């Protein structure tokens, strides 16, 4: 007669160790899902935006980290912390990334990573290892992760109808734009700047900078996209 436990053990199968390929694939899936989640939050829940932003992750595998450059000195603000006032913009003095030219960065922030699709700006001095139990919004060293950071990218899609309805129409360096709040963020913002047909610059500012429309528009006005930048597609 069959013992129930033994029968279940036979169905469960052998205790086979995972291959290195399986482990790597699990990690890749997790990282991809986390990025999708972060970018979907950043995109204000727009399906098109989520798809477009996911595309930059796939297409932007060459996004370089460690292209940080020195800029104006200043104490590093904590992205996850409440700041007393808006973080000041200062002249960007580092090497200019390809496809994008930066006039200004927040004081104490650096260009963390860049590729032809977009740039990531983060507080200077992020430790090599960010504790895994760090609260949400604490920036890490991964330039593909946008928590606690600023990112700008060139993309095909502008704001969805929902954001057009709720966002505020503004002008950025003479170009039409839509300014809106980031989904699930208290003080974070998103800005869509129309550069041409199916060509938008998307700027995302996480919580913590104390910025409002004035600062976001001023910052975005100092980002110049040239023809070598590539458009992410949804």
């Amino acid at each position, binding site marked *: 007669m069959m013992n*129930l436990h033994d029968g279940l053990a036979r169905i469960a199968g052998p205790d086979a160790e995972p291959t290195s390929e399986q482990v790597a694939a699990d990690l890749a899936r997790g990282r991809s899902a986390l990025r999708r989640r972060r970018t979907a939050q950043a995109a204000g829940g727009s399906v098109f935006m989520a798809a477009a932003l996911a595309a930059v992750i796939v297409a932007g595998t060459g996004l370089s980290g460690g292209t940080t450059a020195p800029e104006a000195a200043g104490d590093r603000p904590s992205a996850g912390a409440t700041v007393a006032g808006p973080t000041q913009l200062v002249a960007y003095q580092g090497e200019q990334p390809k496809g994008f030219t930066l006039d200004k960065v927040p004081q104490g922030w650096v260009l963390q990573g860049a590729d032809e699709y977009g740039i990531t700006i983060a507080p200077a001095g992020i430790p090599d290892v960010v504790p895994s139990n760090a609260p949400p919004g604490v920036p890490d060293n991964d330039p593909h992760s946008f928590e606690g950071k600023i990112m700008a990218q060139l993309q095909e899609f502008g704001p969805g109808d929902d954001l057009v309805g709720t966002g505020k129409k503004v002008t950025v360096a003479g170009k039409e734009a839509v300014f809106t709040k980031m989904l699930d963020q208290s003080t974070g913002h998103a800005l869509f700047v129309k550069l041409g047909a199916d060509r938008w610059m998307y700027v995302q500012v996480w919580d913590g900078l104390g910025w409002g429309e004035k600062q976001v528009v001023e910052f975005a006005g100092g980002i110049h996209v040239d023809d070598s930048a590539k458009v992410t597609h949804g």
Partner: protein
Amino acid sequence: MKNERDEQFHQFVVSRRAALVRTATLLTAGDAHLAEDLVQSTLTKLYVAWPAFQRADNPDGYVRRALVNALTDERRRWWRRSERSMAEVPDRVAAEHTGGDVSDGLRAALRELPPRMRAALVFRYFYDLDVADTADALGCSEGTVKSQTARALDRLRTVLGPNPSLATL
């Protein structure tokens, strides 16, 4: 570039994936493909929620809940594909298992159980979890666990026939 989350997750997968696959195989009544899907879904969710998982008072319980949640998701998907529903446990007469692999009969019997009932059986009688931990894994009351496992055992007795190991449960 790996961060601490990646390192911890990597170690977790290396040390726990095999056990997760075995559990998932039982929860899916021996469906290896569905079990692999289940494990992948669970691991992905764990990675995304890694800080919460690290803070969990009962990490093993957290993983079990994630597996069960993924199971119900997967089962819904599978049922939709096969246009099959199982609101009630179907009646079956006792099957003869005098020849062949006896686990085939058990596998068939498990397959006839609703997924949460099957999970209750697996956690209680394969992993020897107590009623409280099983209830935690299933996200239900202890009373529900007792009734689910009792019904599951009844079904196994019906399908498998008299069996000493079932008689003592």
